[in-house]
């Protein structure tokens, strides 16, 4: 058995750590590329959402590395993600890939059923104590990754050399990949902190604009799918804050909600209440709640990211205009799919950042603010 799993930003680092600690043979799919997406798009239903297309591409590329088993999380919706596993199984079967798909979820709510599936992947040679220990370490690794990423968000607009932050980021990631105990994690985080402090000392510019990124989890966590929105914003001198971090996803999906993650999601539903008092699947309600939070914290603007056709986020985007009006904060919705191009995204981001700047300098009319969401 050789296990693979779909990419989602840095998630692979955590999942690989988990399996490797347990001595499970894994094949990490090659980093997602345009080619990956093309492979997936050919097999996927045309109107399926972008993450499904990328997932399929990842599996095909992992098959070439000898993978024969897919581990994916599930859930009972109501958004499409909960049904990805089964649809992907059928698509791969008909395309001639003999993959076994193991959906890591409590089938019919049974935690015992989930335990059996984990046991199946982990094999006999691992005791439950060892499995739990590995899971906890993987979780801490995800928190460390989030800490680093958050610092990078702050560093991008403040480091003078444009690529300095990216270099720091990839070096830190490498350290975290290699870390096999807590000490390594702490050290990696500490080192980034130090380097940023030093690099920032020379920064004399005005306070960077702050933008909150909210929306669908995959596009938020996976820079390939969003065409590096966060990095692009950083390059435009913006400090990014975001609604969901990787460890929250790990806490939700791997720990069935028992761990909250670096950025807890639990306040979002309450904040969303006046605008959307019910969950709508995916992270639709979290998007609305996070938008309220960013607005209250005085962010300069908010960007909602979503794959074309994403059901929960379409609901969220229909209520965001009310938050925009109530808090007088510009909110832009950015939809991506397999046809999205970097240039197009860049143009929209530039226009948005320009608007935020003019707004800060008070050279803006009311129409400008209200129009951004609809552009």
């Amino acid at each position: 058995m050789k296990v693979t799993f779909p990419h989602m930003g840095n998630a692979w680092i955590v999942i690989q750590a988990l399996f490797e600690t347990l001595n499970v043979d894994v094949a990490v799919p090659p980093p997602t590329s345009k080619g990956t997406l093309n492979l997936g798009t050919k097999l996927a239903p045309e109107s399926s959402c972008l993450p499904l297309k990328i997932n399929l591409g990842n599996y095909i590329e992992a098959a070439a590395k000898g993978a024969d088993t897919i581990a994916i999380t599930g859930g009972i919706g109501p958004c499409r993600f909960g049904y990805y596993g089964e649809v992907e199984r059928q698509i791969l079967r008909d395309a001639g890939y003999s993959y076994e798909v193991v959906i890591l979820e409590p089938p019919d709510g049974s935690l015992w059923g989930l335990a059996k599936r984990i046991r199946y992947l982990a094999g006999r040679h691992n005791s439950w104590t060892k499995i739990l220990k590995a899971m906890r370490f993987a979780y801490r690794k995800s928190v460390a990754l989030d800490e680093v990423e958050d610092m990078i968000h702050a560093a991008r607009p403040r480091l003078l050399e444009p690529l300095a932050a990216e270099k720091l980021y990839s070096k830190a990631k490498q350290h975290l990949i290699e870390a096999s105990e807590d000490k390594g994690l702490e050290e990696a985080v500490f080192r980034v902190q130090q380097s940023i402090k030093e690099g920032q000392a020379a920064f004399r510019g005005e306070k960077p604009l702050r933008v909150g990124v909210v929306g669908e989890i995959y596009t938020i966590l996976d820079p390939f799918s969003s065409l590096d929105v966060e990095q692009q914003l950083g390059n435009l001198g913006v400090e990014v804050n975001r609604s969901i971090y990787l460890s929250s996803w790990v806490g939700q999906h791997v720990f069935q909600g028992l761990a909250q993650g670096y950025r807890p999601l639990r306040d979002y539903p309450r904040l969303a209440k006046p605008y959307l008092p019910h969950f709508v699947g995916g992270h639709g309600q979290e998007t609305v709640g996070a938008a309220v939070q960013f607005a209250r914290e005085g962010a300069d603007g908010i960007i909602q990211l979503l794959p074309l056709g994403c059901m929960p986020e379409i609901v969220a985007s229909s209520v965001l205009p009310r938050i925009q009006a109530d808090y007088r904060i510009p909110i832009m919705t950015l939809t991506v799919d397999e046809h999205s191009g970097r240039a197009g995204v860049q143009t929209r981001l530039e226009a948005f950042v320009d608007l935020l700047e003019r707004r800060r300098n008070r050279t803006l009319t009311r129409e400008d603010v209200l129009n951004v969401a609809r552009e």
Partner: protein
Amino acid sequence: MKVGYPRAVHYYDYFPFWAGFFQGLDLELIASPLTNRKILEQGLKKASDETCLPIKLLAGHIQALSGMGVDALFLPRMVSVEEKTYLCPKLLGLPESVFAAVPEGMRILTLDFNVRLGKRRVIRTLEEFAEGLGKTRAEARQGFLLAQNWQERYESRRHEGRSFGESMGEFDPRLAGEAGRTIRFDNPDRDESAAVLTVALVGHPYLTQDNYANLNLVAKLGERAHVRFIEEMEPQGIEQGLQGLHKSVFWSHARKIMGAGAAYIGDEAVDGVIYLSCFGCGTDSMTQDMVARIARQQHKPYMVLTLDEHSGEAGLVTRLEAFLDMTERRVQRESNFSAHG
């Protein structure tokens, strides 16, 4: 007090339930007019561009209530109608996501309908709702009984094979007069012998039964074929159709479409299957793909028609004719084959 119910999305499945409930409260619940061009156009103006056609139509129907002299709009949040399933996320986002379409000053009545929380919670929700309208808890419970009764009656009429117009017409007087005529399937004067084919039209009832949205597809299809719908299939048939899945489908409507679609594909009395979908439907993107796979495996004539606000009648007719011709040839070939074999 007269309350309006938009003739869109869950109207097509659950209106009898809500009509019964309001009847029990001694309030009048009336549906908006049949979909027409103006409703579609107004819907497009007030709904998000990216959303699906049915939600756009819903936005239009909400606006259409303003001319009807209703005192309020009723738009429940239908979360779940049976165990272990939900409705579509976009329906969970009602009514908030269509607030922009609500006419100025119109009161909105809503409640969360969620059977996953248990029957007692459902009844309590209905009681609270009734109290908000100055009715008693007893009246709410009365209404709930009537609601269940009407809904069951509607569903069993459909299982008997009665048309949508006839079955729904019992609870929605407007439909009895108007929509019945356009459905050829229940035209008693129709020459049965002319139709040699039986075609199943699978898809959301708000597409298959909204004759404006589907460009009168059912009537056109009815000229050459007996038309079967997913609502006609009994739960056991749907269950049967879902057998091959490794994980159960958790949206009730998609479950029905998937199960009935698969069952019709496996049914020898059905010559072909048409999946009627619409642009922007998230759940269809999954079920449509799975139904297509089953049709391919079983060599059943199968076609997908995707509606959107720009769909033209001409294109639809051409594709429909071609599909029916192909299916007819298949049926003839197979009957020749068995006659000689």
